[in-house]
C-alpha cells in the first residue's frame, strides 16, 4: 500500500505496534554483525526449532544491536503486559531452557541482564510502554554500561526489527518526514536544523544546517544528497551498526534533507566490506518504495525522491567527500582541491550535500521534537549525542552513545568498566588514524569537537580505543601511520612521500636504531605533512605521531637512548627469559620454539639462547607455569646450561 495521508501512516503504525507488543511472547535475537559473530544466528535457528518442537506459541523475530557488544548474543523477551527483558551471552545450548521458561510465562533468571519498562523512541508522542514488574531485575539504565548514555541515534537499535518497515513506523518512523513534507517549508526545516546546533558526525564537525543552506541556495534543477557510509577507521563501527540496526532512520533523514535543499536523488555510499548493512539498506529502500515513502509524489505532495546504493571500492580515502564523489562517478578515488565545494559543484558537477550516516540519523528526531529540544542535549556549541565504539583493553566493549561534553573518564570507566586486563589504563586513542592519543591524566576532558582538538586529537567518526600499560605508544603511532600511509591516494607529495618517510623513522625507532636527529626529523615531517597536505587524510595523518610525542615523549626517548621498550612490545628491544625457580622442566617451550633457541630436557631448567631467539613469544604463551618472562633492557641470572631442578621445590 502507498502511504498518502496521515491516516495511512497511523494504520501502518497500529499494525506495527501489534508486532512489538503482541498478545503472545515476543522473542527477538540481536542480529547485527556483532551478534551474528558471537553466535546469534545459531541461537536464532535453535530458538526457531525449539519453539516449533515444543509447540510454543511465540513470535520469534530479530533486532539490531542494543550496543553492549561484549554481552552478545542478546535476546529480548516481551511477555504480554510485562517489561521487555534482555538476556545476555545466550548460547544455543541454553535455548531449550529459555523456551521451556517462556512456555510457562517465566524467565530464565540467570541469563537476564536488564529490563525495559518503557522506551522513548523520540519520534512517538509518548514513550512506548511495555509494562511493570520483575522487581529483582535492574532497569536498563541502572546497568553501569548504560548509565552515562542517552540514546538519540540508537533510539530504535536493538528494539525494533530493522528488516520490517512496519516496526519502524510503529515507533513513529516517517512521522517526522510527514511533518516536514506536509507542514513545513524547506526554509523552516533548514532553520530547525540550524537551531539544533547539529554538527557533522563524520569528524570535522561542520554545522549541518549551514551546509544544507549552502546547497539549498544554489540555483540548479538537479541537486543531490549523499550519505557517506564509507566508515573505515580501525576499531570503529558505529555507522555499520546504525545501518544494520535501523536503516529506515537514514532514509528518513535523507528524505527530509532532500526536500529541504531541493534534491531529487540521493546516494548512499557504503563500503563494500559491510554486506549486511548493504543488504538491509537495500531491503529498506525497497520497502520504502512499496509504501510510497520513496519515489514519486511522496505523501501525495509534489515532491519526488529516490535513493541508490553505491558500494565502495575499498579505499579509505573515499570517505573524503571529493574523493567519494569521484568514486561514484566511476573515477579513481582521489580528492580534489576545494573550492569549489560539493555544495557548488558536486556529483556530476551539480550542487551536492554530503553528510555522514550518523548526521542523517539525527534529523528525524530534530524535526519531530524541534531544534530547541536537540540543542538542550550536550553542551554549548556541541549539541546532541555521539556514538562511540569503545574497544581495546576495556572490560565492556560496544557502542556507547553519550551527550557531547561527557568526560572521557565516564566513557572508559563507568560505561567501559575500566581496564580489561587489571593493568593500568594508559591512554585512549580517539578519531582513528586521523586522531590522537589522550593520556589517562587528561581523562576529565569533555568529549566534544573543540576539547578533543585542543588536546591534539579529533572526534573523527567516533572510534575510541583504550590502551593499557602493555601498549607501546611508539608502536601505536607506527601502526596508525602504517594504515594512512597505505591508504594515501598518492596525489600530493607530503602525504604520499612524507608519511612513508615518517613511517620509516618510526620503524627505525621501534627497532632500537633511532637517533635523536631522527626524532627531530620526525617532528619536522609531521608538522609539514599536517600543514601542507591537500586533503583531510594527509592533514590529520601525523596526529597519532604528534600526540604521542606530546604526551609520551619519554617512551620515544627510552627507545632511542636506552634501547628500551617500556611496554615490552617492540620485538627488537625485548628478551625472553626462563625464570629458573619457576621452570618445572616440562620441555613444552623447547618443543614449541620455532627456531630451536631453547635448550633443556625433562627435569632440567630450560634456558633460552639469546643469540638465536627471535622474540616471537611462543614459549611464554605455551608455558603452563608462567616461568617465561619478557624484559626490555634488563636481564635475570640464568644457568649457563640446563641443570637439574632441585628436588622438593
Amino acid at each position, binding site marked *: 500500500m502507498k502511504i498518502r495521508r496521515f491516516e495511512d501512516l497511523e494504520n501502518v503504525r497500529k499494525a506495527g505496534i501489534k508486532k512489538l507488543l503482541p498478545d503472545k511472547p515476543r522473542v527477538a535475537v540481536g542480529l547485527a554483525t556483532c551478534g551474528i559473530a558471537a553466535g546469534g544466528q545459531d541461537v536464532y535457528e535453535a530458538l526457531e526449532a525449539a519453539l516449533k518442537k515444543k509447540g510454543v506459541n511465540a513470535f520469534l523475530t530479530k533486532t539490531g544491536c542494543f550496543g553492549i557488544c561484549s554481552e552478545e548474543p542478546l535476546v529480548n523477551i516481551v511477555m504480554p503486559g510485562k517489561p521487555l527483558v534482555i538476556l545476555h551471552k545466550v548460547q544455543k545450548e541454553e535455548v531449550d531452557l529459555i523456551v521451556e521458561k517462556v512456555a510457562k510465562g517465566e524467565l530464565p533468571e540467570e541469563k537476564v541482564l536488564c529490563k525495559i519498562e518503557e522506551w522513548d523512541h523520540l519520534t512517538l508522542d509518548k514513550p512506548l510502554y511495555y509494562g511493570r514488574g520483575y522487581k529483582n531485575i535492574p532497569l536498563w539504565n541502572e546497568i553501569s554500561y548504560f548509565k552515562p548514555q542517552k540514546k538519540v541515534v540508537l533510539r530504535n537499535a536493538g528494539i525494533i526489527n530493522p528488516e520490517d518497515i512496519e516496526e519502524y513506523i510503529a515507533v513513529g518512523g516517517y512521522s517526522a518526514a510527514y511533518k516536514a513534507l506536509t507542514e513545513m517549508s524547506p526554509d523552516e526545516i533548514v532553520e530547525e536544523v540550524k537551531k539544533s546546533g547539529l554538527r557533522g558526525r563524520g569528524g570535522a564537525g561542520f554545522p549541518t544546517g549551514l551546509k544544507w543552506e549552502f546547497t539549498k541556495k544554489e540555483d540548479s534543477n538537479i541537486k543531490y544528497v549523499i550519505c557517506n557510509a564509507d566508515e573505515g577507521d580501525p576499531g570503529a563501527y558505529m555507522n555499520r551498526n546504525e545501518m544494520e540496526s535501523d536503516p529506515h532512520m537514514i532514509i528518513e533523514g535523507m528524505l527530509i534533507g532532500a526536500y529541504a535543499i531541493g534534491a531529487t536523488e540521493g546516494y548512499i555510499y557504503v563500503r563494500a566490506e559491510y554486506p549486511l548493512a548493504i543488504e538491509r539498506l537495500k531491503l529498506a529502500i525497497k520497502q520504502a518504495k512499496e509504501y510510497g515513502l520513496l519515489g514519486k509524489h511522496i505523501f501525495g505532495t509534489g515532491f519526488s525522491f529516490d535513493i541508490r546504493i553505491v558500494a565502495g571500492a575499498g579505499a579509505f580515502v573515499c570517505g573524503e567527500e571529493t574523493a567519494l564523489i569521484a568514486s561514484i562517478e566511476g573515477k579513481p578515488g582521489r580528492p580534489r582541491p576545494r573550492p569549489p565545494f560539493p555544495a557548488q559543484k558536486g556529483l556530476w558537477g551539480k550542487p551536492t550535500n554530503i553528510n555522514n550516516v550518523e548526521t542523517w540519523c539525527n534529523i528525524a528526531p530534530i524535526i519531530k521534537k524541534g531544534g530547541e529540544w536537540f540543542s538542550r542535549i550536550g553542551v554549548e556549541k556541541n549539541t546532541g549525542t555521539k556514538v562511540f565504539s569503545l574497544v581495546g583493553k576495556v572490560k565492556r566493549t560496544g557502542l556507547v552513545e553519550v551527550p557531547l561534553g561527557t568526560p572521557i573518564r565516564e566513557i572508559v570507566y563507568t560505561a567501559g568498566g575500566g581496564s580489561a586486563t587489571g593493568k593500568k589504563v594508559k591512554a585512549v586513542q580517539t578519531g582513528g588514524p586521523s586522531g590522537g592519543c589522550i593520556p589517562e591524566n587528561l581523562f576529565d576532558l569533555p568529549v566534544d569537537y573543540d576539547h578533543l582538538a585542543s588536546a591534539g586529537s579529533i572526534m573523527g567518526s567516533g572510534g575510541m580505543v583504550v590502551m593499557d600499560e602493555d601498549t607501546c605508544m611508539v608502536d601505536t603511532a607506527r601502526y596508525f601511520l602504517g594504515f594512512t600511509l597505505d591508504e594515501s591516494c598518492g596525489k*600530493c*607529495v607530503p602525504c604520499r612521500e612524507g608519511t612513508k618517510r615518517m613511517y620509516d623513522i618510526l620503524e627505525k625507532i621501534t627497532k632500537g636504531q633511532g637517533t635523536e636527529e631522527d626524532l627531530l626529523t620526525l617532528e619536522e615531517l609531521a608538522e609539514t605533512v599536517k600543514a601542507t597536505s591537500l586533503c583531510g587524510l594527509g592533514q590529520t595523518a601525523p596526529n597519532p605521531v604528534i600526540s604521542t610525542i606530546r604526551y609520551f615523549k619519554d617512551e620515544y626517548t627510552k627507545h632511542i637512548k636506552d634501547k628500551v621498550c617500556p611496554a615490552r612490545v617492540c620485538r627488537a628491544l625485548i628478551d625472553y627469559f626462563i625464570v629458573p625457580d619457576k621452570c618445572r622442566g616440562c620441555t613444552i617451550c623447547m618443543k614449541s620454539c620455532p627456531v630451536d633457541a631453547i635448550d633443556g630436557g625433562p627435569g632440567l631448567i630450560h634456558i633460552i639462547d639469546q643469540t638465536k631467539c627471535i622474540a616471537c613469544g611462543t614459549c611464554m604463551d605455551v608455558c603452563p607455569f608462567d616461568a617465561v618472562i619478557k624484559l626490555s633492557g634488563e636481564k635475570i641470572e640464568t644457568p649457563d646450561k640446563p641443570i637439574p631442578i632441585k628436588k622438593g621445590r
Partner: protein
Amino acid sequence: MKKTVRIKINGKIYEAKEEESVLSVCNRVGIDIPQLCYNEALAPYGACRLCLVEVVNGPGKKGITTSCTLRAVDGLEIVTDTEKIVKYRSILFELYLAQAPNSEEIREMAAKYGVTKTRFSKKVKPLDPLGNKCVLCGQCVRVCNEIMGTAAIGYIGRAFYTRINTPYLEKSDVCMGCGACVEVCPTGAIQMEDIQDKRVMKSWSGTEVKLKKCKSCGRYFAPEPIAEFAYTKLDPEIKEELKDLCPDCRRKLLSKREILISQGEVPMNGE
C-alpha cells in the same frame, strides 16, 4: 569579461581577473614561486604543494595554502616566503630529491631554494620507465585526458607506490603520439623517439604510433592519428590540397602559389 579585482601580494597591490588563480597572477607579474604541477592550460590540481603562500587577509580561510588553487578576490592579501613556508618548502624539496634522484631539473630547482641535500633514502626503482625522474605532478596524465581527450596514460596503484603509465603496462592503442606529455613534463622524465616510420613512446610501455609520410619530400613528419585528427578540422577543399604534406612542403606550395598569383598567373591544382 570577468571583472578586475585588486589583491595585495607582499604589501603591493596587483590587478587580477576575478577568480584567476593567485599563482597565475604571481607568474604574470614576476613574483617567484616554485611550482611543478601547475599549467595554465589545465585545471588546478594542487598536488606538488610547492606554491605555498600565506593568506593574511581576505574573505576566505586564513593561513598557508597553495596559490594555484587560491582564487583572486577583492580584499585578498597574501604573503610569500614566510619563515614557515620556507621551512615546509625545504622539507618538500628534500622529499622530491629522494623521490626523483635522477632528475637534474629537481636538483636545480631545489638548489635555487637552498636545498642541496636530502635526509631521506633515495627511491631508486630498477628499470623505471621514467628513469627515476618522475615526481607524479600529473601534468602528463592531465594533458592527455583534459586537452587531448585521449586518456592513454593514468595512475597505477596508490600511495608511495603510485606510478604513471598505460593501463596494465600494455602498449596503448589510443595514444596518438602527440607528445604533449613529453612537452609538459617538468622533469624531462618521459622518453619518446621517432624511429623510421614509427614514433615510439618508450616510457609508455613501448607504445608505437605510425608516422605520416610527406607525399612531396618523403620524410615522416607527424603521427598519423594526429594528422588525421587535424584534417577533420580543415575546410574540405583545402584539405584535399594540403593533405599528406609536411609543414615545409605545405609552406612551399602555398608561397609558390601566392607568387604566381601576384604575377598574374593562375596556378594549377597541386602546383
